[in-house]
């Protein structure tokens, strides 16, 4: 029916014209498929490299021995990732941290060694600055060395006292993660992918929506179209389905741009995410299904804005409230989490985001999915009706 109707004629023409718009191609296809993976890859690559450099770097650590503690100092000297420097006073050492001569300082108290030898706790003080990343690293490294020192000292004390090894371990806890590598990967994906899809579906159609309605008014082509035999409903439908198609393409490209590089070969990305990324076909189909009402909803909302605006510039000024309407519920979904109460399935946009989280996190709930899908279609229908009503009003179409 649609293929023979005038709305299909309008749709085909609008889609053809839209796909010739370089701004749309760049924003909807090129950017998510090439630029986003490239940016993500670059970020992960340099973050990984930096992390590696951090691990390999030798850090200068200061020691203030108010009384000699050779056992501990020897352990510090033996650590290949630390270079020790001795200071006479605590104040001198603090100045050295501030001037970045050393990154952290260990102050050994006067009674430290004697306490240690008497099976007491040796008094130590660590000085670092939180305002410096390298100082934070030095603090962690120093903590690890002391932890190792404590561990070996404890073992010796237990041995000397002829106590069983379990003396120092009142409980024996073994942790078993039953999640498969794939499901952990999907969970990680679920933390950001729904948010990204919502943004793509919502914002992918902006340029098209503004061009198809406010742009037509601005270029004076709207009058020509309105005087054709196509009814206003035909015109709205044709334009709406064009925006909807572009929004869907934007979502698909966003998914492909993120999942593609993770799933097909970029190992350093997999390492950064932590696990193997894989989504099964059913999940993909369920996500595609749930993104349909979202794209319809946002496309209709954009058409309402574009119909109301006199020109594209005016339409741009309404974009901030639109972004808030879409982004706020999408951001709220990160607070609610995938296991949430049923009423959230009625909250527009957020329900889509949460449903996607559930799908990716192996928490698929058919009832939640059905309510979310149904309510989203209802909201999309309501906004579609508003868009159509706007298009019927001559005081809006011919606003000057």
């Amino acid at each position: 029916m649609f293929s023979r109707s005038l709305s299909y004629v309008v749709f085909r023409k609008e889609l053809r014209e839209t796909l010739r718009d370089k701004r749309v191609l760049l924003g909807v296809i090129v950017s998510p498929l090439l630029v986003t993976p490239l940016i993500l890859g670059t970020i992960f690559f340099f973050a990984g490299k930096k992390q590696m450099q951090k691990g390999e770097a030798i850090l200068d650590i200061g020691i203030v021995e108010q009384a000699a503690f050779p056992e501990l100092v020897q352990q510090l000297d033996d650590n290949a990732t630390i270079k020790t420097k001795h200071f006479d006073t605590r104040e001198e050492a603090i100045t050295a941290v501030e001037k970045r001569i050393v990154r952290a300082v260990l102050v050994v108290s006067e009674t430290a060694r004697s306490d240690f030898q008497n099976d007491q706790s040796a008094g130590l003080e660590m000085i670092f600055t939180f305002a410096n990343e390298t100082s934070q690293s030095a603090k962690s490294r120093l903590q690890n060395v002391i932890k190792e020192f404590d561990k070996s000292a404890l073992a010796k004390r237990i041995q000397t006292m002829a106590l069983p090894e379990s003396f120092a371990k009142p409980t024996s806890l073994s942790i078993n993660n039953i999640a498969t590598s794939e499901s952990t990967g999907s969970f990680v994906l679920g933390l950001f992918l729904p948010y990204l899809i919502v943004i793509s579906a919502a914002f992918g159609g902006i340029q098209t929506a503004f061009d198809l309605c406010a742009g037509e008014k601005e270029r004076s082509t709207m009058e020509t179209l309105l005087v054709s035999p196509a009814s206003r409903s035909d015109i709205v439908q044709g334009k709406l389905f064009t925006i909807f198609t572009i929004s869907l393409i934007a979502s698909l490209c966003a998914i492909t741009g993120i999942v593609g590089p993770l799933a097909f070969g970029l190992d350093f990305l997999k390492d950064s995410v932590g696990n193997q990324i894989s989504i099964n076909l059913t999940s993909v189909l369920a996500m595609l299904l749930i993104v349909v009402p979202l794209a319809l909803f946002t496309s209709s909302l954009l058409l309402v804005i574009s119909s109301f605006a006199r020109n594209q510039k005016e339409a741009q000024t309404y974009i901030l409230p639109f972004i808030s309407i879409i982004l706020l519920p999408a951001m709220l979904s990160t607070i609610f989490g995938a296991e949430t109460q049923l009423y959230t399935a009625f909250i527009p946009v957020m329900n889509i985001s949460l449903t996607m989280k559930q799908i990716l996190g192996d928490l698929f709930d058919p009832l939640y999915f059905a309510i979310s899908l149904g309510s989203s279609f209802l909201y999309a229908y309501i906004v579609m009706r508003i868009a159509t009503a706007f298009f019927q009003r001559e005081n809006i179409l011919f606003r000057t």
Partner: protein
Amino acid sequence: MIIAENLTKTFRDRKRGLVRAVNNLSLTCHPGQIFGLLGANGAGKTTTLRMLGTLLEPTHGNATIAGYDIRKNPQEVRRSIGFLSGSTALYGRLTAREMIQYFGQLNNLRGTDLSTRVDELIERLKIGEFENGRCDKLSTGQKQRVSIARSIVHRPPVMIFDEPTSGLDVMTSQTIMAFIEQCRIDNLTVVFSTHIMSEVERLCDRVAIVHHGVIAAEGSVDELRQLTGEAVMENAFLKIVHEMKDPHV
């Protein structure tokens, strides 16, 4: 044929309150006749033509176009008219051929009927050399020829021209004027709005002088000259307009 009876259009303006853009305007235009609406900017010409073109709904009154009621059969009315205005533009990212085809499809032309008609118009209006060029790359004259083709692709019996030469150079204006004359030869019903006296003198069989939304005088160019005792149409127009009391005052 166009028959308009007591067409009235009011709208609410924030500053001016209720504005009567067109007030009880009636006109009759026959096939093979060019009917001119002559008036200054803001006189109500465009609003009248937009009502005839079913773009705006009249507040009162009615009209029939080619026998179709503009209120009851707006879609049939739109099928029966070709609408050309000086301000209407083309779709920049479509080619000239695609533009004509699109409006043919909107008028339910399909298959060979469509392609034959498009080919015919491309040949008749000498669009061939730029038929595959994108509309945003065409010159003003070329764009105007495509606009003409777009407006008549469905062979409408009625043509509505809203200041079709506005903003065009003399050469391009001549193309439009010649086209309007051809419409008369082809026995189409033509209604034409303008504020350019020379166009009225050259084209119009009957003229209605519109001022403040009402018809101040109607007749042939000669009749209006005789009525005012002026030899020049411009003076006749000014005399009629000045003698008319502002209905809004």
